[in-house]
């Protein structure tokens, strides 16, 4: 299916107004004037400037499904759906892992489940990169192949649209009421393919010096190397808080006299109090220990538990680090004998 970019964006801007019964909110990747190089997820009812075909947003999609702070018991629900537009392939991989951890186990996180079920997720191909993007190391691609409800690939002044679920079909039905949709030509399909391959090659070349092999066997590396690599780390926890995957939580009891209320908020293994037990003992009192734990968690513990790395190569942790620590460099250097 083909739709004009302009018409599609107008539809998104008016979506809540035009479909008040079905749609409660539209969140899209946008560009803001004060920070033109970064993209942010914004509730677009105010008519923001969309930026769907660039690289991933500053904040991870995870935070739209697993909030920094959220009441989980009792949990209030609404019937309306929300739409998130401009999600990238790296974040779709992250959601896939979160599904395994939070839905496919013998428990289900009630609010994550609710947001997953009640969100129409629209992904779009990356046609720009950030300097820290490195999904190709993890076999990722700058476009999505599954995990979306609808995917957009921009060619000239149009979007090639494909659907990936019944929620996607529902969205197309809504779209059809307001926007003219034409069939996709095979020439167009070919253009999408060529464009994707072109961006993939560029990204791969940029990350040439890093290999997936350096991410294995981190557990057995000399502790001295970890110590050296962590010297710059100030333990602020920015890397885990901005991560597309990290889902560690704190469960607070905020009960009233009438009912038990549980609130979950995010936690970071980089903070000293993270693993502290009653009485004050902690298994990781040193910074290098906590620093190392993050790498082991992502590339060993998560890997052995879920059979996939706890990193999608979005590079947000590199961007967020005040000490300019690069996760790619650390895994490479920690294997170099000092």
């Amino acid at each position, binding site marked *: 299916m083909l739709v004009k970019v302009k018409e599609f964006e107008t539809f998104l801007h008016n979506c809540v107004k035009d479909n008040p019964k079905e749609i409660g909110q539209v969140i899209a990747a946008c560009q803001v004037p004060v920070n033109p190089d970064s993209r942010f997820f914004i509730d677009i009812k105010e008519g923001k400037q969309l930026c769907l075909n660039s690289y991933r947003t500053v904040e991870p999609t995870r935070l739209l499904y697993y909030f920094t702070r959220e009441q989980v018991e009792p949990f209030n629900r609404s019937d309306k759906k929300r739409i998130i537009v401009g999600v990238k392939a790296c974040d779709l991989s992250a959601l896939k892992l979160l599904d395994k951890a939070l839905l496919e186990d013998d428990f289900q996180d009630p609010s994550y489940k609710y947001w997953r079920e009640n969100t129409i997720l629209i992904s779009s191909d990356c046609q720009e990169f950030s300097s820290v993007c490195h999904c190709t190391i993890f076999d990722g691609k700058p476009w999505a192949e599954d995990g979306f409800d609808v995917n957009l690939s921009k060619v000239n002044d149009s979007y090639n649209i494909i659907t990936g679920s019944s929620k996607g079909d529902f969205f197309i039905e809504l779209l059809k009421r307001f926007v003219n949709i034409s069939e996709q030509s095979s020439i167009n399909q070919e253009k999408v393919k060529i464009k994707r391959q072109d961006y993939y090659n560029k990204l791969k070349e940029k990350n040439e010096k890093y290999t997936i092999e350096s991410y294995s066997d981190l*557990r057995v590396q000399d502790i001295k190397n970890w110590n050296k690599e962590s010297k710059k780390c100030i333990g602020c926890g920015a890397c885990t808080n901005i991560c597309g995957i990290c889902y560690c939580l704190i469960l607070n*009891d905020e*009960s009233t006299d009438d009912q*038990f209320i549980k609130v979950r908020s995010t936690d970071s293994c980089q903070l000293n109090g993270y693993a502290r037990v009653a009485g004050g003992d902690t298994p990781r009192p040193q910074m290098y220990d906590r620093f190392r734990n993050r790498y082991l968690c992502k590339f060993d513990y998560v890997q052995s538990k879920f059979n996939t790395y706890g990193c999608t190569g979005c590079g947000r942790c590199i961007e967020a680090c005040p000490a300019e620590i690069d996760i790619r460099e650390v895994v490479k250097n920690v294997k170099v004998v000092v």
Partner: protein
Amino acid sequence: MADKNPFKTIPAKIYEIVDESPLIRTIKVKPEINFPFQTGQFAEVSVPNIGEGPFTPSSPQSFGFNLEFTIMKTGFVTEHIHKTKVGDIIGLRGPFGSRYPIDEWKGKDVLIMGGGVGMAPTRSLFLSMVDNIDDYNSITFLIAARTPADMIYKDQIQEWSKIQKVKILKAVDKVPEGEKWDGDVCLVTKLLEKVKIKPKDNPAVTCGPPIMMKFGTLELLKYGYAEENIYLSMEKKMYCGHGQCRHCVMGKYYACKDGAVFTYDKIKNEEKIWE
């Protein structure tokens, strides 16, 4: 877990409180709906508007009309648990985690080592087995505490010694002046020398401070117990109890979900199991 929603909290009313030692007390509660659990499993116990902590019931496994928790005052939440009164409501989530496979131990000679407040889970285990004592060949229960005043369940221990097939030995690290003591003064591992050990194919359980479990395990191995027959309770921070918060991760295991009861062979290569 009966419910897929792990955050569901069951209110439970405190109907009795027993002070066991200066720092340890037992609270007995009646949950609003049954809270069935198997011995070794734990519950997240919450004090409203204060917080939660993981505690293994010290009462025998049951359908959960009544539960007992023996809790040491050692941090923020436990301090508030110690401030509760009869009639107060606390919250229960769970039950979570692994259990002691007591049905697989039928016909065996079971050795239990419990130290300090680690007596709580082992009391649950011991009493659950005593309920069907005919099923077991023997139960040897080695009990330790720092001082006689720190020893909990004193009166009950007297009664337990009278049960047939049960042998109980108790020891303290030291006896301060003025305190009376009728047991041994030594480490719990020393008590092993005083009992007839039958390590072959039999289970041994240790629960107590990490240092006790560490040296207890090493001693049991020396006596010839198999790694897969040594049961340990891992003490880690467990916020959620169901394998979501990741605070208790031990390699591919969660202490809360795959434990807290582990056999030694499973976790011996994981990092910092004694810390």
